């Protein structure tokens, strides 16, 4: 044990560094459990397989692992195993050479999903930094007659997304307006009093359904190759869902158009029947957001594609409260493709990447927002 006053503090810190959002209170829970004798079973029998860590592992797991990305069981296991290995090697080394090894803090775990760090952009008018001014640099002279291009000013890493997370969260708040829904089991005091004054005596109470914000978001993402370049623009939404700022929300993948199966976002090999997703939707609560090009990248739409999309939308529309199709291609690229037709069917529910547009769609009053598909233009295109 590292310290009797703060036992396993180094383990706790390693977990924090690895991305688990643990608070001091949660460390205190471990101290309390240790004080009450939990987690130290088999501790004295220092067998070489390290079995005596198992009890501590179980206790820490119950205390700190939760069904959430910030308390992930995989991160916990990784860090814990590394910690145990380190400690065991430390003990063995101690036994061999009687030399106290310097306690090294465990390496922080690299976060698995993170964008490469964006270098700060140099402004055109910025002054060269002091160091740059001091150090003599070899200057490359360009070819005569050609303007010199400073390639440090070009950044290919996208940073300013057309749909920032903030505006997505605002749209989400607008979408999840409370609705009166379900059976009438709340007393409507105003209406009751109105009735008493009208009738002159108290006859009966007036009930109304409870107002509730019961909304769930389902995001369907086209992960076909043509959509790859637009992926970073979707990232703010995915981040908001993964950090549970938009919740409850589920993300599924499809390619080109959803047919019988959708695929899990985290595990793309796991197929989920579209029927099952449909049957879990609620006509007053489910909001579907589709991310796809709707065929805007293909000048000549195939008949399969058209019927496939039409079938999909026809099946989906009676099951949802609202639908928004986010097409990352600008509207002038929809013209003459299947996207134009889909936009017509959806009657204004297809939008491009613009925060005001999405907000406006989210603002539509929920009651009139039942989805009706317009009849398709036969033989159009």
């Amino acid at each position, binding site marked *: 044990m590292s310290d009797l006053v703060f036992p396993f503090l180094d383990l706790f810190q390693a977990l924090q560094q690895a991305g688990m*959002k643990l*608070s001091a209170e*949660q460390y205190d*829970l471990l101290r*309390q*459990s240790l004080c*009450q004798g*939990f987690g130290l079973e088999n501790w004295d029998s220092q067998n070489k397989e390290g079995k005596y860590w198992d*009890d501590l592992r*179980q*206790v820490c797991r*119950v*205390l700190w*692992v*939760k*069904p*959430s990305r*910030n*308390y992930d069981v995989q991160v916990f296991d990784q860090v814990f195993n590394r910690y145990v290995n380190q400690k065991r090697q430390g003990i063995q080394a101690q036994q061999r050479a009687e030399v106290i090894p310097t306690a090294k803090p465990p390496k922080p775990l690299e976060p698995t999903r993170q964008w490469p760090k964006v270098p700060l952009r140099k402004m055109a008018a910025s002054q060269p930094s002091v160091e740059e001014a001091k150090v003599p640099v070899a200057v490359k002279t360009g070819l005569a007659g050609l303007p010199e291009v400073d390639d440090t000013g070009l950044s290919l890493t996208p940073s300013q997304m057309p749909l920032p997370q903030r505006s997505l969260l605002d749209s989400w708040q607008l979408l999840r307006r409370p609705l009166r829904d*379900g*059976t009438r*089991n709340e*007393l409507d*005091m105003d209406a*009751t009093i109105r009735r008493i004054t009208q009738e002159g*005596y*108290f006859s009966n*109470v007036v009930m109304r359904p*409870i107002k*509730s*914000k*019961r*909304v*769930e978001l389902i995001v369907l993402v086209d992960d076909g190759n043509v959509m790859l370049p637009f992926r970073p623009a979707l990232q703010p939404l995915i981040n908001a869902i993964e950090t*549970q700022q938009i*919740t*409850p929300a589920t993300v599924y993948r499809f390619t080109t158009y959803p047919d019988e*199966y959708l695929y899990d976002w985290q595990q793309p090999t*796991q*197929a*989920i*029947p579209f*029927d*099952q997703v449909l049957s879990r939707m609620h006509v007053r609560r489910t909001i579907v957001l589709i991310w796809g090009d709707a065929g805007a990248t293909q000048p000549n739409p195939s008949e399969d594609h058209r019927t496939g999309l039409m079938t999909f939308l026809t099946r989906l529309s009676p099951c949802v409260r609202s639908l928004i199709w986010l097409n990352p291609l600008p509207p002038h690229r929809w013209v003459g493709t299947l996207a134009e037709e889909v936009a017509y069917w959806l009657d204004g529910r297809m939008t491009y990447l613009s925060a005001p547009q999405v907000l406006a769609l989210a603002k539509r009053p929920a009651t009139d927002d039942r989805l009706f598909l317009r009849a398709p233009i036969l033989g159009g295109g």
Partner: protein
Amino acid sequence: MTNQANVDYSYSGEQKYQPIADGFRDPDGREYFPYLPEPGLKKALNLAIALKRPLLLEGEPGCGKTRVAAALAYELACKNWGTQPADPTKPKSPKQPKDWWNFYIWNITSSSRAQDGLYTFDAVARLRDAQLIGSGPEQLKKYLGEQETDALENRLKDKTKYREFGALGQALQAQTYRPVLLIDEIDKADSDFPNDLLLELDELRFTIGDTNENIGPPEADKKPIILITSNREKPLPEPFLRRCLYYYVPFPQADTLRSIIAARFGQRVAQKQELVNQALEKFDRIYRLLGRQPGSRPPGTSELLEFLTALIQEDKAVEEAITELENLAEELPLLGTLIKTKADQDLYVKTSSKSSEG
């Protein structure tokens, strides 16, 4: 009844604290069956009891998340009150206490609100009473009678007569020992629901606005033991998760399943080991088949117990049951206890006919 100092709240799941195989009924009519806790679950539960934190349990449907709360209440009553498992021949043992260990269940539905678990205030009844009194006391006496009118007047003077406590509200009131509270299937409710319970779960107190009452917090040695179950239909908010301990209940291994069957059916399967083995084999195959199938849910422990109940009915000969098992694909009513959808049943029928051909 019990000395405060030596109430033992630990949970062991030992044989001597198990109810009999046919089940035990408490004064409220709730049934208790033998329960074999998985070692990790036992540890997590004891940790939650010791740290006085709510324990959130998740796991596949039918793996025994909900049952563990009843098992805990039963064991605590046995341990501390000396209630022995009732003798099957004498259903009412003399030692059985009149009231049972305080065990509250709050079943969450999609329309549950956080306040429902604390209290409800019957404003309508109060309004009605006020109207009745106002309509003329003399007339009222004529219709309701002296006694009822007095009761009505008394009721009207005391606002607290109109409020009724929910499961959580009851658990937070003055207790003589730590009660057990089960909040079942919390993920069924509105997504804001768990967040509405933060203060109540954290500080174990609440205020009733209608009557200006403050309830709780209970003394440290009378805090409720709170178990919360979830089926993972919705993610739970992080502030809520932070306040709970968490344990994922794994599906029982084959050996554990065997002991569960032995504990639940007792003498009834003692002579039918061959049948149980075959049934477990079939169950295992279905479990693995559906586990691989996207969109299907493999059967859980509760389904297995139903399946066995159907097989070992007393008037059914063992041979007959074994024949039924062998032709499980054709015995649709029996198959229906394990596989609940038409699509999955078809899949099973198809694969089993293929394997018998091959």
